[in-house]
């Protein structure tokens, strides 16, 4: 969560609140010129693996973020698991943002408050030797690879906030 939520935090800090205009058209206002609905193959739940860490005296912990893409928002939830299969997750934090999508070159561009946030593109990635459908996400410059299932592969790392 760290990577996705922190990059969203940085994004929000730079977004002028004036971009959120008139309540009646609040949704319309934050749309790019032509907003599209995500197709079934893009929307829904994807998982991004952060990585694992271990402290002396406690078991190794694996962090995974669940990304839920919906027509008007994106929800990111961070979980911790005690095993590399990423089962038995405990929730730690979740953030829900307004998001709009625009079709662009085989994928989508994500918009929040009239600003481009990142891009989405379906691809295939190899996990433990097997090819799996993946979603290549760029979020504020950070590249992430998400899968339909939670797998401990393609770790994106953690943000160390000073």
């Amino acid at each position: 969560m760290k990577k996705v939520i922190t990059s969203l935090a940085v994004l929000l800090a730079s977004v002028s609140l004036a971009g959120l205009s008139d309540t009646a058209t609040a949704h319309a206002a934050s749309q790019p010129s032509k907003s599209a609905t995500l197709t079934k193959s893009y929307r829904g739940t994807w998982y991004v693996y952060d990585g694992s860490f271990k402290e002396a005296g406690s078991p190794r912990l694996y962090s995974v973020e669940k990304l839920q893409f919906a027509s008007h928002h994106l929800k990111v939830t961070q979980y911790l698991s005690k095993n590399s299969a990423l089962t038995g997750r405990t929730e730690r934090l979740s953030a829900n943002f307004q998001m709009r999508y625009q079709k662009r070159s085989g994928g989508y561009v994500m918009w929040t408050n009239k600003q481009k946030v990142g891009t989405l593109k379906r691809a295939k990635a190899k996990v433990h030797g097997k090819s799996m459908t993946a979603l290549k996400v760029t979020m504020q410059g950070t590249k992430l690879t998400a899968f339909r299932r939670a797998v401990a592969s393609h770790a994106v790392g953690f943000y160390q906030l000073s």
Partner: protein
Amino acid sequence: MNKLIKGCLLVLASFSFFAVVGTTTGQAASKTVALPKSYRGTWYLYGGVSMDSANKLPVFTVVRLKLQSKKLNLGVYTTNTPDLKSQAWQLSIASPVTYTKRIKKGHPAVYRVLPRSMEGESLAILGKTKVKVKVLNKRVKALRINLDGDLVYAFRRPLQSHAMDTLLD
């Protein structure tokens, strides 16, 4: 307002790379308590007003803080009217939390909010108080939230008072 959201997100999102799982950290661990009913539920913080350059309308920000027995929910809403009605949702942050009680001699009890993502560190200290609200011209019950030294006040209903953005500049 952006600074507040950023602050909340950064605070909630930051945890030491070397996390301690399910155990207590350094300082003497206070026992987890249930948050009293008078603290639970929805509180409203006023985020301040800014001008929307596009259609020259003022944008008022309201933060809905929902304190539940095991969860904390922060929702940011905006509206164009000073009565703070017809709020449009902008974003939400949720976190599982635990509460501890702190009693200092001669002071009323206060509660610490510990989000699960903060590894035993407290996000804020909550206390009950009464503050004078200019728009109503009377004293109103408020929740005093101490964020690492910065005080913000929340009310049981949206009030255009005690804006948070002034604290953050």
